[in-house]
Structures are given as structure tokens and as C-alpha cells.
């Protein structure tokens, strides 16, 4: 944690007796080839077409497509839309990320029940994946090659961004964790898993450019909403609601931290 000079010195003194921080990054080298081989040919790409078909097909109680859904660039306009999310939407008077916006459209345009979608949004590992996962991937893929650059012109966008920053650093629960405990320094790992340094531009850019991603061990597409939920689970905190304001605020913070990066989805995560 950050502290003033006097205490930093005091802490350093006790840290020195607590154990030396050895260079523990060696394990990472043996992983690099494997990661590269997996990323080069990403099975996640197989879900893009599926998402496209779902977007244009007639679904839900109203037998409607999502072509009237406005992700911020106008109804059905997907080119570059994900690169500017989260953003403020006048019709809902809310700042929304891609998935919460998708939820709004599936309810309002297609007539689905909010609870039903949320229940199925995150697919079981080893399944064929959920509609929302495929849709989120397809829509984001239409911003591939474009730069992440969400707007901050509306007052609610600025509020959401600052709330996200606050939440990133907020510690609670029996592990005393906030996001920053794992994602506040460079070259850190939980066990063998690399942790992105999200308070640094480069680390945040990897977050902002690689979700939705194919998760090797789950064999399905995972989304940013899932990623956040899973972090809170591991932190021993209560369950983060899908598409909640807290999730949108954190995504807003991360996307702004990582702004300027070229979007390239699906990512590949172990």
C-alpha cells in the first residue's frame, strides 16, 4: 500500500526481516511458448459466427432480431460500438457496458425476461456456451482493430468512472482484499497465474482489449462480467449481480485506464 515516507521506511525495515523478495518470475518463461501457441489459433473464433447469427436471427417471445439495438452508434450499428463502452444511454438514463446494454435490448426488443437471461448468461464450463457469451463476442469483434476510447462527456459517465476507481481500491471481507491487492503491481502471480497490473496503462490495456476471451480450461467464451464475478468469488465476497452498476463502474474504470489500445477479441486465457 501507499504510505508516507516515514512509514514506508518503517515498513521496509520489517519487510526485510519478513523474507527477501526473490526474483520469482522464472516460472513465467516456461509458459510463454504455450501461451503463444494457444493464442495463435483460438477456438473462441468459432463462436463469432454463432453470435452473428443470434444477432440477426428472430428470437425471444417477440420473435425479433437485435438489429434495432443501439449500442451507442445508432440502431444495429456495431462497427466500433464496443470501443466506446461503457457510455451513457438516454433511454435508460444510465451508463451501460456492452453486456448490460445487450440485456436491455433482449428484454425491450425481444421480450425476454431479465431474470431468465441473467440465469443463463454465464454458461457451465464444458458446455456449448450461452447466447449472451456468443453475442458479446460477436459485437465486440466488430470493433477489432479499433482503439478503446469510451466517452467521458456526460456527467454520469464521469461519476461512473470515478465510482469504478473507488471500487477498485475498496477493501473488505475476510481476506481484506480490493482489486488492487492482486492487480496493483507489475509481474505478480497468484500461484502460476499472471496477474495484470491494472493501475498501469499497459496492464489495463490488456484487460480492455482481450475480453470476451476463450477460456481454455472452461472450453467456452467468457466475458468481462464473468471475469469480475469470479474475482469477487475468489475474494470471498458476496455474488456480484450480472450487469450491476458496480460491474459497469469497474469496467468503466478499466476501459479508461486501458484507453487507446487496439481491440483484438477473442482473447485466449489459460
Amino acid at each position, binding site marked *: 500500500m501507499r504510505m508516507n515516507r516515514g512509514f514506508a521506511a518503517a515498513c521496509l525495515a520489517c519487510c526485510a526481516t519478513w523474507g527477501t523478495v526473490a526474483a520469482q518470475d522464472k*516460472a513465467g*518463461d*516456461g*509458459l*510463454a*511458448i*504455450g*501461451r503463444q*501457441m*494457444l493464442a495463435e489459433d483460438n477456438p473462441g473464433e468459432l463462436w463469432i459466427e454463432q453470435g452473428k447469427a443470434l444477432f440477426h436471427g428472430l428470437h425471444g417471445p417477440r420473435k425479433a432480431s437485435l438489429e434495432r439495438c443501439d449500442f451507442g452508434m445508432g440502431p444495429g450499428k456495431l462497427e466500433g460500438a464496443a470501443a466506446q463502452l461503457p457510455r451513457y444511454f438516454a433511454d435508460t438514463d444510465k451508463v451501460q457496458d456492452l453486456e448490460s446494454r445487450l440485456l436491455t435490448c433482449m428484454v425491450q426488443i425481444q421480450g425476454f425476461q431479465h431474470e431468465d437471461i441473467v440465469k443463463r448468461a454465464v454458461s457451465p*464450463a*464444458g458446455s456449448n456456451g450461452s447466447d449472451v457469451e456468443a453475442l458479446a463476442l460477436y459485437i465486440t469483434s466488430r470493433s477489432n482493430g479499433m482503439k478503446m476510447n469510451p466517452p467521458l462527456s456526460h456527467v454520469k459517465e464521469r461519476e461512473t468512472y470515478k465510482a469504478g476507481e473507488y471500487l477498485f481500491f475498496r477493501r473488505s471481507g475476510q481476506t481484506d482484499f480490493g482489486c488492487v491487492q492482486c492487480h496493483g503491481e507489475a509481474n505478480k*502471480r*497468484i*500461484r*502460476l*497465474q499472471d496477474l495484470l497490473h491494472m493501475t498501469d496503462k499497459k496492464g489495463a490495456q490488456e484487460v480492455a482489449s482481450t475480453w470476451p476471451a476463450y477460456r*481454455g*480450461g*472452461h*472450453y467456452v467464451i467468457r466475458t468481462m462480467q464473468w471475469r469480475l464475478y*469470479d*474475482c469477487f*468469488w*475468489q475474494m470471498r465476497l458476496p455474488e456480484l449481480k450480472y450487469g450491476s452498476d458496480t460491474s459497469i463502474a469497474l469496467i468503466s474504470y478499466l476501459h479508461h485506464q486501458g484507453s487507446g489500445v487496439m481491440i483484438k477479441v477473442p482473447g485466449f486465457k*489459460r
Partner: protein
Amino acid sequence: MNIVRRSFLKFAGGIGALAAAGAAGLLHTAAALAAWNKAGFESKALADTLKNLGVSNPTESRDITITAPDIAENGAVVPVAVTSRIPDTEQISIVAEKNPFPLAATFDIGNGSEGYVSTRIKMGQTSDVWAVVKAGGKFFTAKKEVKITVGGCG
């Protein structure tokens, strides 16, 4: 991550049950190719696997390169590529020694295909991965250790 650990266990268990399924004749359908090397795929020990691949007196060869990570983050998806620079390479097999059934795949190569294959396999534990190459009627081998760790959290 528990899901990963569970899938390892299931994988190991699944392989265990496979011999029974095979013996009961459930493994194959009429549609399965005659070429499918049942004996090879059902061998449990490395020696039997090699025998059922028709290997005798294999030579260790430096002309075979195995590209795979030293450490795999996820035993469910271990990338393995094999390059054989041995002239007239006609077959490449990938064998994970400590898997319950070591033989993962056999590739018959012909008509101008290079001595190269790349795929991804499941591995239950840290093990040597063997490349068994048949060229000009002779067998050559190479191996590389891949360490498998159960994933961390999330």
C-alpha cells in the same frame, strides 16, 4: 481453480473407464475407420504403446523437434507441435507417457505434406511427451518433459 482440478480428475477417471468400454465393444462403431489403432490407443504402458505402434529398435533423433511449453498452465489444453527433418517421414505419433493411455494421436503423412504436425492434448500430470516418427520404414524418437500444474484461482 476448482473447475480445472475437477476436469483433471474426470479426465483421469474417464480414461480409466475407457478400457472397459473398449472391451465391451462400445468404443467403435462400424463407421470408425479400420485404420484406427485400437491396440495402440488402449495400451497403458509406454512399452506396449510403442509395440502396438509397430516400433522396434527406435533411434533417438536430434532431427525431431518437439515444441511444447516447459510448464503448461492447463493440462486440459497442452499445445504440442512436432517437426521431423528426417527424410521420408511418413508417420508422427504423439505419446504422453504418464497418461493412463499414453498414445494421443497418430498422423500419417504423405503426398508432399511436411514432417510437421501441431495439435493440443490433455495431460493428467507432469510427464515426458514423446514424438515417435516413422521414416523410411524405421522408427525414431524424441521426448520433452511438460510440467503440469493445477491452475491457481479464477
